[in-house]
């Protein structure tokens, strides 16, 4: 079910101060996709989610789910959450402690007065789907974190909602369980072909789970794209910096062609094989991620994007090595193979992959 959000704004008043949570958000969330709202804490992502589900009311704008307008400040429409036909997994899971697993999962059906036999059938089916068969009579308080998470998911799925929303559902799990659950969740959602809106501040979660990612900042959507587009192609400084580690190099554009921009900077000349909106002579920032800086052997001075520097430090982090390289006064971070034969203090030759040097626009 497609969700259309038009010009939605929301302000809070806290201790006499006005805090803008959402300012004029326009967004269309496509149907049957996993759509992630990603951003630092306080960017408004949870507020947006709560506006969609109906737990908060925007100050202005319009929200439509499928054909139905669930909120409109102009038409004075507000459909309460229980009539929107959505469901949500909360950060705290919100498992009701006075009920067992069965009643927690059956609740959405009981609230809609579904016949008892059908409730039983559907709860059983859903519990089987999330691999919690046989847990029906377990008190909700006697479940592990991962099991609670799956009960919350089962409860959200059982009534076959039009849209399912997730508010940082993995943030209470430990690192290993979080990784497993992330994969499981992706498998569940892909199998169901359901529209899912997912809120997180964890970039790895966003990249690995989503079909589409929207990055938010200060109550606005900054950029929307597939995980790859966001990671590789973004030309916004905030997005590039937020989505992963990167080196930012200041310089001046000397020539701008269709698919190639040449930049002069303190290191020398950098060639970027990406489309950019820069004008020749303009001050620009180039971003190159650590994994696209490579050590090369032999005399390759004639190639573009090759620089010599000194390896200041090298830290082994398991699957790779992270090095700090000084070229003149610039300190760069680079990611090498764990087996690379370089040592601290070595003079090394580096190559920047021109396909992954991006010129930032803002």
């Amino acid at each position, binding site marked *: 079910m497609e969700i259309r959000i038009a010009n939605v704004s929301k302000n809070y008043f806290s201790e006499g101060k006005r805090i803008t949570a959402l300012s004029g958000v326009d967004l269309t969330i496509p149907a049957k996709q996993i759509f992630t709202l990603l951003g630092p804490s306080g960017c408004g992502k949870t507020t947006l989610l709560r506006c969609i589900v109906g737990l908060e009311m925007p100050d202005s704008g319009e929200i439509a789910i499928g054909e139905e307008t669930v909120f409109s400040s102009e038409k004075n429409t507000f459909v309460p959450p229980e009539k929107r036909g959505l469901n*949500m997994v909360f950060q705290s899971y919100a498992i009701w402690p006075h009920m067992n697993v069965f009643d927690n999962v059956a609740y959405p059906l009981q609230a809609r007065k579904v016949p008892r036999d059908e409730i039983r059938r559907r709860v059983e089916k859903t519990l089987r789907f999330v691999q919690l068969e046989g847990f029906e009579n377990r008190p909700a308080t006697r479940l592990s974190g991962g099991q609670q998470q799956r009960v919350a998911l089962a409860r959200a799925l059982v009534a076959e909602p039009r849209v399912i929303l997730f508010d940082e559902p993995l943030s209470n799990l430990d690192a290993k369980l979080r990784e497993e659950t992330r994969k499981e969740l992706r498998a569940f959602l892909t199998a169901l072909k359901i529209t899912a809106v997912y809120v997180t501040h964890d970039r790895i979660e966003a990249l690995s789970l989503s079909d589409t990612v929207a990055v938010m900042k200060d109550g606005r959507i900054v950029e929307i794209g597939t995980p790859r587009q966001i990671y590789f192609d973004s030309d916004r400084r905030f997005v590039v910096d937020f989505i992963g580690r990167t080196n930012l190099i200041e310089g001046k554009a000397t020539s701008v062609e269709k698919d190639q921009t040449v930049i002069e900077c303190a290191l020398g000349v950098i060639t970027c094989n990406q489309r950019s909106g820069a004008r020749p002579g303009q001050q620009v920032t180039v971003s190159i991620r650590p994994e696209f800086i490579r050590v090369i052997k032999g005399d390759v001075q004639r190639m573009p994007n090759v620089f010599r520097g000194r390896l200041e430090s090298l830290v082994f982090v398991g699957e790779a090595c992270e090095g700090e390289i000084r070229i003149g006064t610039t300190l760069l971070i680079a990611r090498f193979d764990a087996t690379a034969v370089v040592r601290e203090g070595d003079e090394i030759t580096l190559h920047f992959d021109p396909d992954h040097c991006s010129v930032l626009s803002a």
Partner: protein
Amino acid sequence: MNRERTMHRTSRALTLGLLVTVGFLTVCPVFMLLLGSFSEGLTSFGRFTLSKYVQAYTDRAFAEILLNTALFTLGSAFVATGLALFLAYLNTRTNIPFKSLFGIISLVPMMIPHILFAVSWLLLLNPSNGLINLLIRQMFNLEESVFNIYSLPGMILVEGLLDLPIAYLVLAPAMAAFDVSLEESSRVCGASNLRTLARVTLPVLRPAILASVTLVIVRSLASFAVPSVLGMPGRIYVLATHLYRIIATGFAADYGMAAAVGMSVLATSITLIYMYRYLTAEGEKYVTISSRAYRPTVIDLKNARYPLFLIVGGLSLVLIVLPVLVLLYTSLVPYSMVPSARAFALMSAKHWTAVLRDPVSVLSVKNSLFLGVVGATLGIVLSVFVCYTIVKVRTLASGILESLSFLSFSFPGIVIGVGFMWFFVRTPLYATIWSLLIGYIATYLPYGLRPLTSAFVQIHSHLEESSRVCGGGTLYTLRRIVVPLLIPGIVSGWILMATMFVRELTLSVVLSRPGTEVLAVQILRFAEDGLWGRLSALGIVMIAISTTLVIIASLIGSRLTRVEVGNRGRDGVVG
């Protein structure tokens, strides 16, 4: 949009209504007390006058009363806190056997009303025919009695035992939350167990100990049962009994002078309660409560295990079993005598039939039962709304509400009674049961609020929101999520209030009039007339009523919480 606005309007109306109600209950008696202390007479205020203050504070006996009060309150505080520290330490930090006994000791004040506890000690230790005194006199052929309960030490001992549970409830959690590594490092530095206790454990617990002392001082300052039953026969007056003397004995009750004396009691009490609040807030800073799960190291008592347990066991015997036994025994024998074959032969239901035929006693049972059931129910309904506003609405007004309801925690019953008297005498409520009901709720509101606040805090807003998202409307959510989660808090709040109301004495001695006698006041009358047999019979009726109410409320509570289990059975397991 309309929905949110209506919600805002209802919650604002609710907050306002509660502010008015709670404000009336707490501010009205204080204000009337103040007004009364500057007035000429109870029925008509007359001109503004300072004469009542002059009269009250230049009384020659007043200095002695103040001294008695200071000794009585401080003495009780030391007895109660000392015993509580001992018990709390044994329970939380050592391997003493039968730890469940400690929980029972902390529940005692719900079972034994203070006036009966004081009377039972009087029956054991009074100099003319106290059972223990008689026994010792017979055994050693003495002329004089050894113990005299009609003395300051006697009053301090009994009050200290009565306030022991409250001190224990303050100290035990602090002791349990104590960061053991502080002690361990002392042990590592070579200090012995005892030295560690004196140099590390007790100093770190100082805020909790001070809080306990403060709280017991407030309680014993307001205490009326012990000073009236044990102090007045020996002419040892403290402020509470002095107030009672001014309004209830002598030729003319002087409510103006009572108000003037009451003002200083109230001021002391409020100051102490705010000090207590400050101390407990500070305490959270000092006592290091770490979030990691740890078990405090348990100190092995070795050979001292059972002797120490005997002390604890003896203490609980003295606290619970002895008073009930003494009352039961006294209600059956014709006059005070040491238990013997002859005493058992003389036993009869004489006092019981006398009480059951006494119209005033029967009326007092009816009145107390009504106040217990209806008062606690109304009180708990008010508490639910007040708690909801304090915990969930959280506006400026709800902050004021919290302070107001906390204020009444410091109200000494007899003083508030005088304040309410100045108010009720101007209304048709005067001398009706409703005046008692209003006074009770005003004074005991915090007892309903405490368990409900923790219940409300436990209901995370996500629990309600997820019900809405799952398709449950406001009422459905209330019925299936909010109410079931609140029931344990409602039940314990109701039990606390009902038991307090059934035994209420201090407020009632002021507000009760012919026709509105209540159990505790009638028991006090019997005590004043020396009718110990009838007193004991009525006292046992009182204990029976309290216990029955506790049991019924607990049963209803578990039945209501089992509704969910019932649903489970039908929807889930069957088939």
